C-alpha cells in the first residue's frame, strides 16, 4: 500500500485519532477546514454515514476548485482557514443581554418598520428565552402542519427523522460539484430548513423560517431543501425584514427546491443582512446558490426576492424547467446604497416542451452602490415552444453609483420565443418637479417613485411582507436624496 493510500485509509476508515472529547467542552471548533473538522461536524450532529461521506466528497472536490472571479463584485480575498466552520447555536451569554445593549440605530430601524416589541429583541440577537417564550407559538404551527402531513423542521432534525428523503433529494438540484461555494456549503453546512409536502396537499399557511425559532441563530452555512410532491403547493418565506445583528462575514447558503407533477413552489426572500457602514466597512458577504427543479409536468417554481442588505450580494436563484409545460418565474428588487455591491439575476434552463419563464428584475443603485443583473436564458435542443420574457430595469440615484446588465441568451430550438428588454435611467426631473409642486417633499417623492418602480415585484410578496418591504426601501435609501 502506498503512503498516499495509507493516508486515505486513515482518513476514510479510521477514527480521528485525536478524538473530540475536549472539543465537546466548548461549542465551536477551531478555525480552519480539514477532513477531521468535517468528521467532527458530522459526528456532533450525529449524522448517518451517507451524510459524512457526502460531506467528505464535497470537501475533496472543493479543494480542487478556485475562487470564482467572474462577477462584478470586489472584495479582499477571504482566508478560508480563518473561518470557524462549526459553532453551536450562540449561547445566551454571547449576545447582548437586553435591548439596552443593542445599537440605537438598529432599534430606530425596528421602530420605523413597525416591528412588535418582543420580536425586536429576538431579531437583535438578545437571548429570547429570557425575554419571552416563543417556543409555544412555534409548536402550535408545527402541530397544524403535521395534521396535513407536511414536514417542516430543521435540517438536522430531518436528517435524524427522515434520512431516506434527505438521501434521495440532497444535492439533486445543486450538486456539490456545482460551484465553489456550493461545494464549501455541502462540506460544512451546519443546519437549515427542510420541508416536505406530500401528494395532493395545499400547505395551509405560509411557511417561514421566521416561525422556526431555532434556525434564527444558525451559522453562515445553511441549507434549505423543499420537496413538493404531485398536485401540492407551498409558499415559503425566508429571512426577515429587519437587519440581523450578525458579525459573520461570509454567508454561503444553498437552497434546493423540487417540484413534482403539477406542484407549485413560491419562494420569497426579503434579505436585509448588515450592509456595512457608510464607508463600506464590514457587512455580510452573501454568496448563495439557489436553484429549483421543475421535475414534473405542469410544475411551477417562482422566486421573489427583495435584496436590500449585505455588503455583497451574489446570487442567482434559478429554475431548471425539465418537466413539460413547466413554469419558472423570477421577480427581484435589488437595492445597493453606500458601498454595497450586488451581482444578482437568474438562470432559466428550458429543457422540457412548452416551458415558460418570466424574469422581472429591478435594480436600484444609490450612493457608491454597484448593481448588476446577470442572467441566462437557455433553450435546449428539445425544448420546443419555449417562451421567455425578461425585463430588467435599473434606476440610478446619485452620480457615483453604477448599474450593469449581463443577460446571456442561448437558443437552440427554432420554435423558441425569447424577448429581453432593459432600460437604465435616473428619476427624471419632471417627475420630481411634479411631486414637489404638489407639496410632496423630495424624500417622499423619491420613495413614492421607487415604490412605483418596484410595484410589480412587491405585488408578488404576501401582503404583510409587501408592506414591510416598502418600509424597508425607505429606510435603506435614507439620506441618499437631497
Amino acid at each position: 500500500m502506498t503512503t498516499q493510500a495509507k493516508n486515505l485509509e486513515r482518513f476514510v476508515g479510521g477514527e480521528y485519532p485525536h478524538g473530540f472529547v475536549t472539543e465537546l467542552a466548548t461549542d465551536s471548533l477551531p478555525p480552519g477546514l480539514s477532513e477531521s473538522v468535517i468528521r467532527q461536524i458530522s459526528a456532533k450532529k450525529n449524522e448517518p454515514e451517507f451524510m459524512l461521506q457526502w460531506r467528505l466528497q464535497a470537501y475533496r472536490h472543493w479543494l480542487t476548485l478556485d475562487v470564482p472571479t467572474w462577477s462584478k463584485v470586489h472584495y479582499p480575498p477571504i482566508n478560508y482557514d480563518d473561518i470557524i466552520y462549526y459553532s453551536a447555536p450562540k449561547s445566551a451569554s454571547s449576545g447582548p443581554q437586553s435591548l439596552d445593549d443593542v445599537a440605537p440605530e438598529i432599534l430606530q430601524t425596528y421602530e420605523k418598520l413597525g416591528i412588535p416589541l418582543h420580536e425586536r429583541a429576538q431579531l437583535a440577537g438578545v437571548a429570547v428565552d429570557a425575554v419571552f417564550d416563543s417556543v409555544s407559538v412555534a409548536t402550535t404551527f408545527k402541530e397544524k402542519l403535521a395534521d396535513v402531513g407536511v414536514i417542516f423542521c430543521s435540517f438536522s432534525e430531518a436528517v435524524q427523522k427522515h434520512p431516506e428523503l434527505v438521501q434521495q433529494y440532497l444535492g439533486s438540484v445543486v450538486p456539490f460539484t456545482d460551484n465553489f461555494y456550493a461545494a464549501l456549503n455541502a462540506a460544512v453546512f451546519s443546519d437549515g430548513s427542510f420541508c416536505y409536502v406530500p401528494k395532493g396537499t395545499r400547505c395551509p399557511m405560509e411557511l417561514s423560517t421566521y416561525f422556526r425559532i431555532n434556525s434564527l441563530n444558525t451559522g453562515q452555512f445553511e441549507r434549505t431543501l423543499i420537496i413538493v410532491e404531485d398536485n401540492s403547493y407551498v409558499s415559503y418565506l425566508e429571512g426577515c425584514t429587519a437587519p440581523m445583528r450578525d458579525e459573520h462575514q461570509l454567508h454561503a447558503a444553498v437552497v434546493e427546491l423540487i417540484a413534482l407533477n403539477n406542484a407549485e413552489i413560491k419562494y420569497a426572500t426579503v434579505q436585509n443582512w448588515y450592509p456595512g457602514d457608510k464607508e463600506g466597512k464590514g457587512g455580510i458577504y452573501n454568496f448563495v446558490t439557489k436553484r429549483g427543479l421543475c421535475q414534473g409536468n405542469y410544475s411551477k417554481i417562482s422566486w421573489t426576492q427583495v435584496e436590500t442588505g449585505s455588503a455583497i450580494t451574489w446570487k442567482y436563484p434559478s429554475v431548471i424547467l425539465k418537466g413539460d409545460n413547466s413554469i419558472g418565474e423570477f421577480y427581484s428588487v435589488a437595492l445597493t446604497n453606500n458601498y454595497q455591491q450586488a451581482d444578482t439575476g437568474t438562470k432559466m434552463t428550458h429543457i422540457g416542451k412548452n416551458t415558460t419563464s418570466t424574469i422581472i428584475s429591478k435594480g436600484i443603485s444609490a450612493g457608491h452602490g454597484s448593481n448588476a443583473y446577470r442572467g441566462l436564458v437557455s433553450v435546449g435542443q428539445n425544448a420546443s415552444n419555449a417562451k421567455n420574457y425578461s425585463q430588467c430595469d435599473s434606476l440610478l440615484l446619485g452620480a457615483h453609483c453604477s448599474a450593469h446588465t449581463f443577460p446571456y441568451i442561448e437558443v437552440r430550438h427554432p420554435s423558441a420565443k425569447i424577448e429581453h428588454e432593459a432600460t437604465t435611467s435616473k428619476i427624471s426631473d419632471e417627475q420630481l418637479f411634479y411631486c414637489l409642486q404638489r407639496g410632496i417633499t423630495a424624500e417622499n417623492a423619491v420613495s413614492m417613485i421607487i415604490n412605483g418602480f418596484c410595484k410589480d415585484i412587491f405585488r408578488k410578496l404576501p401582503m404583510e411582507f409587501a408592506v414591510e418591504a416598502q418600509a424597508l426601501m425607505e429606510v435603506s435609501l435614507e439620506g441618499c436624496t437631497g
Partner: protein
Amino acid sequence: MNAGERLLKDYSQNKARLAGHSMPWLTGIRECARESFAVQGLPEVSDEDWKYTKLTQLAQANYGFAERLDSTFIASLADNVLNKLIFAAEHRLVFVNGHYNESLSTINLLPEGVILTSLAQAIEEHAELLSSTLGSIADYATHPFTALNTAMLSDGVFLLAQKNTKIETPIHCLFISTATEQSVVNYPRLLLLLDESAELTLVEHYLDMAQLKSGMAQTLSDHNFINHNLTNCVTEVLLSPHAHMDHYKLQYDSTDTSHIAAMYVEQQRASTFTSHSYSVGAALARNDIQIKLVDSQAECILNGAYLVAGRQHVDYHTQIEHLAPGCNSRQIYKGVIHGRGRAVFNGKVIIHSQAQQSSANQLNKNLLLGEKAEVDTKPELQIYADDVKCSHGATVGQLDEQALFYLQSRGVCKKDAQNWLVNGFVSEVLKLIDNPVLREFIQLTVIAHLNQLAGGDVKSLQELISTGEGVMPCH
C-alpha cells in the same frame, strides 16, 4: 507546434517580404505586436469574448503566405468581377488576395487635401504620418487577431481627408480572394483619418471568386482546391471634431473561409460615425466593432444584418464606450439563421462616470428558421453615471403565424409568403442606408441571397406584379 505558433512562423519566414520591412519604426510596431500575439495566443472558448466561437477549422489549417497572382489571371478579373458589379464607383481600390492591384483600381480626381493610396505605398511615401498614427487606435493588447494583423500588415488602404474636405461619392475598397494552392491568410489593414469637418463614405467589400458563379467556371476549374483561407482585417478610424463618416462593410467571402475583422473608431467632439455591416459569407465570420466616444456630442450609429445558413457561424461583438458627456449611440442588428447556422451577438455599452447626459440604445433581433440553428445573444450595459438614458433589447423568434396566414389566405404560396416576411424583417435595417446607390446595391445582393437561402425560385412582389401574374397562387 500549435496554431498560434504556426501563424507566427509565417511572420518570421516572410517578414522580409512585407512592405517597409527595412523601416525601423514599422519593424518596431510589428515586433511589439508579434510579442503580444505570442503572449495572448489564439483565443479559446474559456475566454469570455470567445465563449461561443470555436476556431477549430482555423486552428487546423496550415497557412502559407499569399503570393501575388499572375497578370493574365488578374486581367481576367476585370471582365469577370468588376464589369459585373452593378455598383460603379468613381474611386475604387482593388485588392487580390490582400495585394493592391493598380491595374484594376481607379482613383479619379480627389478634392485637394485628400490622400488615398494603398497602405504599402503610404508606408513608403508618408512614413512620418503613419508612424504616429498606425496602430494608435487599434489596441491589440486585448485582441490576438488585431495583434496578428499588426505584426503582418503590409497592404491595405490609407486615407487622409484634411480639414473641410468632402468626398461626394463612395470610395469602394474591394478585397477579392481567389482559390489558392495552399491555405493562405490575408491581412488587409485600413487606416482612415478624417480631419475637422471632413466628410466621406467608404465601402469595405469582401468578395470571393466562388461567390460569383457565371463566367468564372473555366478559370476556377484549374484551381479546384479545398483550403481554409483566413481573412484577418483591421480598420482604424480617427474622426476629428465635426468629421462625418459613413462606413459600409459587405462581407461576401466564400463559405469555406474564416473572416475575422476588427474595427476601431475614435470619435472626437461632435463627430458622427455610421456603420452598416452586412455579413453573408464565410464559414466563420467574426466582427469586432469598438467605438470610443472621447469627446462631447459625438454620435455613432451601428446598423447591421447577418444572414447565415448551412454550418455558417457569425459572431458580432460591438463595444461602445461613452467617455464624455452628451454623446449618443444607437445600434440595431438583425439576424436570419437558417439550417444549422449559428449566430452570436454581444453588444457592450459602457458609460463612464464622466459621461453624463449619455443616450444609448441597442437592439438585436433574430429570426431562427433552421431546425438546428442556434442564437446566443448578450446585450450588455455597464453604467457608471446617473444622468443617462440607456436601453437594450434582444429577441429570438420566428415568423408571425398570423402574417403568414394573412398572406396565404390571399393566395400567396407559403414559400413566397415566408420569404416576403423575411425580406421585410431585414428591410428594416436596409432602409436605414442613406446613400441611394448603395442602398439599391446592398438590397439587391442581400435579397438575392435571402431568396437563395430560402431555396431559390422565389419571386419578389415586384416581379410578380411586373410579370403580370399579380398576386396569384404560384404552385
